[in-house]
Every structure is written in structure tokens, then in C-alpha cells.
């Protein structure tokens, strides 16, 4: 038998039919639904008078539009409110389980999937959101889809796909103290670029990946899309199994044992061949900070803002100049001299319990700097919020001057009221530093939760390892 990659195995197990040219009908085990990319899909189903193929394969929540402040008065913005109410109604009409705004299990769709055990190893999982790659951390084939495909999955439980290429990103060795999953994935994007994984499913491997918690692995897979890959995956190991065990949607007793033995095969075979292999040395990775308007515009905390004059490719150099203009930064400025206005700790990239712990650890006994107008921590789900409160993390953060909010996507994309004003500069644990992403004219620097908290207390970027 030929050696297979993990991606090959996941793919092969889900082929319903394949044409000679490789066009494949791929079966989808789990579909996560949120309010932004689904209304037109439900409308399409109604118009065509179709039914859902398998209602219990779907799980819905509201995350993009929900307020992170007091929810007792509902949603003020009429457009946001309509979108949230539309999902509530669609879930009711079609019988889909939904964690609505005031459900304690509500949260960011990519946080609650794994948290509930709705994401399982070996699954195919899709959602109308590009950061669906997150779920690959559990050894699932997970990728983002558009609204037409949301409708397609709802009505057929399948997608028409062509197989991607296999890419292996191996991070060998161990990272130093203060270097996190976020720094690893930003370093990977720095290495391969935002289109480096286009057309590929990336498997992340190597000691530095194995050493990460499952939450950390989710951070890495989450940003596979920022490297151009629709899917990021990580082999199943004991940590994965321990993580899944006992979660509400996970199998139990006999079925659990059967599943665990099947999951033992969810890794690439020893001699499996990859179309592309990239190797990084974990020891060389330092805390990362983006300086531009694309996640590949990233450097280490001890570096300076790059100089477009040193870039030989004219298109690239012009892109760098445009980014510096937008970010209002001068070339060669030391990163740790960049002052910030706001701090956002949250998003499907970094809003899990260990992210909040990391922020609280830095915040403990310190104060948010006076030049920082707002430092907010937005947990990824209601359950994470509760866990953090049980651990007393909220008190540490509030005492240091952070705001402690209700769960949602919040200022990662600023669809709700949380946003940057024009010209404001933010240290953000989210995933995209595109122009206007966090609010029109806003300037985003992507960092890890520890680095964001360090920037909050220092007022500017600072190496969290050297914080006084």
C-alpha cells in the first residue's frame, strides 16, 4: 500500500464519488453555521423548495454581530439585529441546534466547535468562514466555504471539490520562553508568504508543534488561511484524545473506544510524500509583530520596520510603501518604539483559556499605560469566560485596567460596535491586519496575547521576555 499523508487519509475516507478529472463529491460530517454567511443560503433552500439533508450535522451560533458589552437590551444596530434574528429564525424553522446570544455556550464558532466536541478527529468540517482551518488542529479536514457552498452542504451534505496539494511545514526543535503558537505561525507566514500555501492543505508537524497544547495548535491552524492554505492539519496524539474526551458532543463508552482506535491512524505515514516541504528552526523564532497591511509583513520584536528601498521587486516595494503610508510608519523605525492606542485580546485565533491566562500573567501587578485608551479582553465563548472567572483571571485583568467583555468576534473584524477609529493603532491578537479590518482607517499590529498584554502595560511594543 502506498504511504499516505494525513490529508490523503482524511480526503479518501470522505469521497462519495470521483470523476476521471478528479472532480470529487466529498462528504461533510459537520457543518458550523453563523449569522453572516448563512441567510442567503437558507433563502436559496426555501426558494428551491429543498430540505436539509441531515439536520443534526449542523450546529449554529451567533458571533460576528453580537455586542460584547451588556446584552440585556439586545442589539442596538438594526442591521446587526436583523442578521442575528434571521439566524435564530432559520435555525428554528429548519430544526438546527443553535447557541443563541444569551445561551451560556454561545461563542465564536471556531471556539465552540472544539469546545463542545462538535469537532472530532477524522471529520470533514466546513463553515462559511475562512478561519474554519482552526479545527484541523484536532486532526480533522476543515476548511472555509462561501455561501453557495453553505447552501450546497445544507441540502446535500456534500461539496464538489478537487483535491489540494500536500504541504508539510515542520517546525523542529523547541521554542524559547515567551514564544507562543502565534509567534510560530507568524514566523511561518513570514517564511512562505500569504500565498505560500495556495492550492495546498498544510500539515504542521515537528517538535515545536507537538509541544503545543491543543489550543495552541488551533492558533497555528487558524492562520493557515493567512498563508493561503484553505486547510491546516495536525496529526492526532494523546493530547488530542485527552482534549476531546468527555465533551458534550463527543462519543461515549463503547463508541468512544471504537473512535479512539480509529483515530490512531490519523497521522501521515512514515514515507508519505509531500508536494512541498518547508522547515523552520523553532529556536530562531522570537516574538513577532506585524508592521504592515498583510500578515506576511511581519518581523521579530527586536527588528526595525523594513525599508522598501531595500526591496528589489518593484511591485513588492510599492506594496511596502503603500503599507507604510497606511500604517503611518517610517522605514527603519525600531518596532519597540511604536506606541499604541488600543489593545484587543480575543478572536478565533487567540481567545481560549490559555490565551487569557497568558494575558493575565503579564497583567498581574501591572497597569495599562496611560496612553492606551482601551485594552479589552474578549473571551472566545461563554464557557471560557466562566472558566476564566473561576480562575480569577477577570479580576487580575480588570485590576490592571483591562475591560472584560462578553464573547464574540468583536474587534477582530469590527462588525459590532467594537472598532478602531480612523488613525488609531492597535496591538491585536487577531489574524488579519488588512486596511480597515478593525475599523476604517484603523492600524492593526498582530501579536500574541502575551505580547499584546505587554504592549498594553508598556504603551508601546516591547519584548515580553524583557518586561520589567
Amino acid at each position, binding site marked *: 500500500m502506498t504511504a499516505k499523508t494525513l490529508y490523503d487519509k482524511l480526503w479518501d475516507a470522505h469521497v*462519495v*464519488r470521483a470523476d476521471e478529472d478528479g*472532480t470529487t*463529491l466529498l*462528504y461533510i460530517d459537520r457543518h458550523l453555521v453563523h449569522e453572516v*454567511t448563512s*441567510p*442567503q443560503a437558507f*433563502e436559496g433552500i426555501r426558494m*428551491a423548495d*429543498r430540505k436539509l439533508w441531515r439536520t443534526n450535522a449542523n450546529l449554529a451560533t451567533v458571533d460576528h*454581530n453580537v455586542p460584547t458589552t451588556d446584552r440585556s437590551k439586545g442589539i442596538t444596530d438594526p*442591521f446587526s439585529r*436583523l*442578521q442575528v434574528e*434571521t439566524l435564530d429564525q432559520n435555525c428554528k424553522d429548519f430544526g438546527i441546534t443553535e447557541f443563541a446570544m444569551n445561551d451560556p455556550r454561545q461563542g465564536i464558532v471556531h471556539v465552540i466547535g472544539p469546545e463542545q466536541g462538535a469537532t*472530532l478527529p*477524522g*471529520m470533514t468540517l466546513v463553515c*462559511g*468562514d*475562512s478561519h*474554519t482551518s482552526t479545527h484541523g488542529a484536532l486532526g480533522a479536514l476543515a*476548511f*472555509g*466555504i*462561501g*455561501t*453557495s*457552498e453553505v447552501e450546497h452542504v445544507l*441540502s*446535500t*451534505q*456534500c461539496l*464538489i471539490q*478537487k483535491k489540494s496539494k500536500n504541504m508539510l511545514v515542520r517546525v523542529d526543535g523547541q521554542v524559547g520562553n515567551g514564544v507562543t503558537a502565534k509567534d510560530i505561525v507568524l514566523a511561518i507566514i513570514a517564511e512562505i508568504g*500569504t*500565498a505560500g500555501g*495556495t492550492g495546498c492543505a498544510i500539515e504542521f508537524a515537528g517538535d515545536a508543534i507537538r509541544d503545543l497544547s491543543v489550543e495552541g495548535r488551533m492558533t497555528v491552524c487558524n492562520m493557515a488561511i493567512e498563508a*493561503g*492554505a*484553505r486547510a491546516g492539519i495536525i496529526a492526532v496524539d494523546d493530547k488530542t484524545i485527552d482534549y476531546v474526551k468527555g465533551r458534550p458532543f463527543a*462519543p461515549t463508552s463503547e*463508541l*468512544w473506544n*471504537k*473512535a479512539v482506535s*480509529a483515530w490512531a491512524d490519523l497521522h501521515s505515514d512514515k514515507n508519505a510524500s509531500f508536494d512541498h516541504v518547508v522547515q523552520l528552526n523553532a529556536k530562531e523564532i522570537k516574538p513577532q509583530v506585524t508592521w504592515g497591511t*498583510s500578515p506576511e509583513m511581519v518581523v521579530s520584536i527586536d527588528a526595525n520596520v523594513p525599508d522598501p528601498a531595500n526591496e528589489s521587486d518593484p*511591485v513588492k516595494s510599492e*506594496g511596502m510603501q503603500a503599507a507604510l503610508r497606511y500604517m503611518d510608519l517610517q522605514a527603519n523605525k525600531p518596532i519597540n518604539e511604536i506606541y499604541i492606542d488600543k489593545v484587543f485580546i480575543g478572536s478565533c485565533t487567540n481567545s481560549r483559556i490559555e490565551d487569557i491566562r497568558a494575558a493575565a500573567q503579564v497583567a498581574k501587578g501591572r497597569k495599562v499605560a496611560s496612553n492606551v485608551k482601551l485594552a479589552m479582553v474578549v473571551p472566545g465563548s461563554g464557557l471560557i469566560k466562566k472558566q476564566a472567572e473561576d480562575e480569577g483571571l477577570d479580576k487580575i485583568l480588570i485590576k490592571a485596567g483591562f475591560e472584560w467583555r462578553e464573547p464574540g468576534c468583536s474587534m477582530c*473584524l*469590527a*462588525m459590532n460596535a467594537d472598532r478602531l477609529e480612523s488613525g488609531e493603532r492597535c496591538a491585536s491578537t487577531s489574524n*488579519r491586519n*488588512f*486596511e*480597515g*479590518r478593525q475599523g*476604517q482607517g484603523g492600524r492593526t499590529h498582530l501579536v500574541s496575547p502575551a505580547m499584546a498584554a505587554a504592549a498594553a502595560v508598556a504603551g508601546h511594543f516591547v519584548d515580553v521576555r524583557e518586561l520589567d
Partner: protein
Amino acid sequence: MKKFETFRGIVAPLDRSNVDTDAIIPKQFLKSIKRSGFGPNLFDAWRYLDNGEPGMDNSQRPVNPDFVLNQSRYKNASVLLARKNFGCGSSREHAPWALQDFGIRVIIAPSFADIFYNNCFKNGLLPVVLEDAVIDTLFNEVAAFNEITTFNKKEVTALPGYQLEIDLKTQSIKTPSGAVISFDVDAFRKDCLLHGLDDIGLTLQHVEEIKAYEHRRQQEAPWLF
């Protein structure tokens, strides 16, 4: 879905790499529960000088005269010429909806982000990948053409913009000089575009196979059901 037929269209040059879907259609417009009406907010932050919000009368907003689609010769553009990694970022299908609502039918770039590329075909929009060198030539030809059609720094609007003729059937693009550039496209996607086929309808022709798969899978991995 609308059939994609051979057509001739004005080319608007958008000389940027990594044009992301947040730029194509900013998030505040994603609050709509409809599939149409996104065209006036296509490239909103680049196109207008004020902050756009849903519900605004876009015809009353101050436009950015430097943005390419605001130049009168591109008002009726249906081909967008861009640089690498076009459509990166979010999976929002509102991006192709906005492009199509504006009147764009073809996007030509050296590379596209996967999800965006896929979303285009679901909406009768043709993304064409051409080599960097060919893209450079097209940008140069558009620029040269505009120089001829500009008199005393003023656009001669009576003259139409640079046009390309796109034939999906023969997978070829004809330039004004008569040169023919061929391009690759997946056979299945091409067929769907040419005939305006609905993916769901096609898949539902295989109901029995899906059921058979589910039956088999339920034996192998019952915890998934």
C-alpha cells in the same frame, strides 16, 4: 446561474497585490441578508472619501477621484486586471456578489486565493490566471492606450477604454492588437459556467451514491452520525 458567454469588455487596471476581500467589500456591508445590492459598496474604502455605512445614499457620497473605478472611462468596466493573490482573506461570497453587481464578469491576475477563486465560479464570474509577464504586458498596454486617449491631461471620454475579448469556450483572450492569449480553466467549472449549471442540482443527481456512502460510513464510524 447566468451562463457565461463570449464577450468584450473594458479593462480596469487595479495595480495592487494581495487585494483582500475586506477591501473588496468591507464588513459593515455584510450585515445584509440579501444576495444583491453590493455593487455601490464595491471597494468602498478606496472608492469614497467618507466612511461608508449600510443604508447610506451612495450617490450623495464624496468619491475619491484617484481610484481607478471612479475614472469615467472605467465606469462600464467588466474586466478587472490585478496583481497576485487577489481575493485573499475572508470567505465572504459578498466579494464576488459585489464585483458582479458592479458589472465585473472577468478578473485577470497572476494568482487568486483559493476560496475566492472557487466562489467566483458559483456566481458566473470568471477568474483568469495568467503569468506575471503577460499581466505586466496587459498593464502596460492599458497604460499606453490611456495615454493615447488622454488629451491635455483630460480624458477623451468619447473613446472607450482598452478592451479585451474573452472566449471561455476556446479559453482565449484577444487583445486590441489581435494577439491571442490562452488560459487554463478546470473542465468541470468551465462546463458549469458555459451552461449556467446549478451545483446543487448536479449533486442531487447522485442521491443514491450519497446514501450508499452514508450507509457504509455509518458502519465504519458510527460516532459521526
